[in-house]
């Protein structure tokens, strides 16, 4: 009946923050093998939108559906298919990089240290695996958080400023990872200021106040 029921869809999302009407009826539909690039000036609600899509924030109006089902009614399944990387790298500074990954990814799926090391290796921080996160540089922390997304093997990626603190090689890496993810049938929502420079189809959503 609803032939748009594949992928992730949000419709007429409204969010107020106090008196401020942050999101004013934002809609989009992202299908597998698609990437949605969310851009906009500071304070236009990019992160808020991503939090709404993740299910962390319930919009006051509007709906978010995945495979035609509201994400609140299929919360567990939706979250199992989701990898969210917030603006902060979300690492415990007292735990090592690999422990951080283990405690975060281990709740989604059974992982072996080998899987986690492979993910860290892919993002170029395998050498830091046994170091506590507090001694890592901001760029290394970002790479560890990318490794976490990778190790979750999720079909939906929600990335908030994945390029932050990364050097040129790091930005390249983000593009490669995104491209591979989309080509394997995943979908991604990426908040970023810069152009993503991808060869796969990219849809754009520009937020303005």
């Amino acid at each position, binding site marked *: 009946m609803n032939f748009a029921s594949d992928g992730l869809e949000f419709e007429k999302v409204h969010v*107020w*923050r*106090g*008196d401020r*009407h942050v999101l004013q009826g934002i809609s989009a539909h992202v299908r597998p093998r698609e990437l949605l690039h969310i851009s906009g000036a500071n304070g236009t609600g990019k992160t808020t939108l991503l939090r709404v899509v993740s299910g962390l924030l319930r919009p006051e109006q509007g709906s978010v559906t995945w495979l035609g089902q509201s994400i609140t009614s299929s919360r567990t399944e939706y979250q199992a298919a989701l990898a969210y990387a917030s603006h902060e790298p979300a690492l415990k500074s007292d735990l090592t990089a690999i422990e951080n990954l283990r405690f975060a990814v281990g709740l989604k799926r059974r992982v072996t240290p080998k899987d986690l090391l492979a993910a860290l290796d892919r993002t170029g921080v395998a050498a830091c695996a046994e170091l506590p996160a507090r001694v890592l540089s901001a760029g290394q922390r970002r790479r560890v958080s990318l490794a976490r997304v990778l190790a979750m093997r999720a079909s939906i990626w929600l990335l908030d400023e994945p390029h932050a603190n990364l050097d040129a090689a790091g930005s390249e890496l983000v593009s490669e990872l995104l491209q591979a993810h989309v080509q394997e049938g995943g979908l991604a929502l990426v908040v970023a200021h810069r152009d993503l420079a991808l060869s796969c189809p990219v849809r754009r959503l520009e937020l303005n106040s």
Partner: protein
Amino acid sequence: MWTWFYKLASPPYVYGVAAALRLWLFGAAALAMGYGLIAGLAIAPPDYQQGEAFRMIYVHVPGAILSLTVYTVMAAASAVALIWRIKVGHAVAAASAPIGASFALLALVTGSLWGKPMWGTYWAWDPRLTSELILLFLYVGVMSLRSAFEDPLRGDRAAALLAVVGVVNVPIVHFSVVWWNSLHQGATIVRIGAPKMPGSMLWPLLSMWLGFMLFFGAVLCMRLQAEVLNRERQASWVREAIKS
């Protein structure tokens, strides 16, 4: 089938009803309190044990009952607001809290004024007074939690949850305080509100209680209007509402 429920809870409707009810409630409260005051202070005979001092009952007991009633109203409104996501519920809860806290304070102060001639001290760890004090702390907690949030929406919901948790706790606190008190003191405290109160003493009390209830209703209406306005600033009906 729930449409009437949501219509009843729609902000413009609530605002209108509150504005219309307010004066009637004040009038009725004044009548009930007026009768209660005259009958309680001048007509009712002095108590055979406590003499004229018992007349403090006419403000102490209604204040104490109201402080509990208002907390229940606040918690019920909070529960409705949390379960059905009805904003007006938060408005009712936010409007009730300061009124209830003021009644709790009234019950405490008048209780201790009554305590001096009866117990010989302003404060005895009487179970009723002690649980009233804890009730006041609960009110203060809910109010400070609400105002601590910069986002009023989150403040509303956090305070609502605390109010619901608190209302579960109120009977437990009261029971435990009574139990604790029975360990430390015998039944030396004069029991108030004994069932065999003659009508000439009872009617003024009931009238004062009714007056306090109506007064709470009236002040609730005023505060509710304000809370609804604060939550609905963008809505178009506000323009009409504040003109009148």
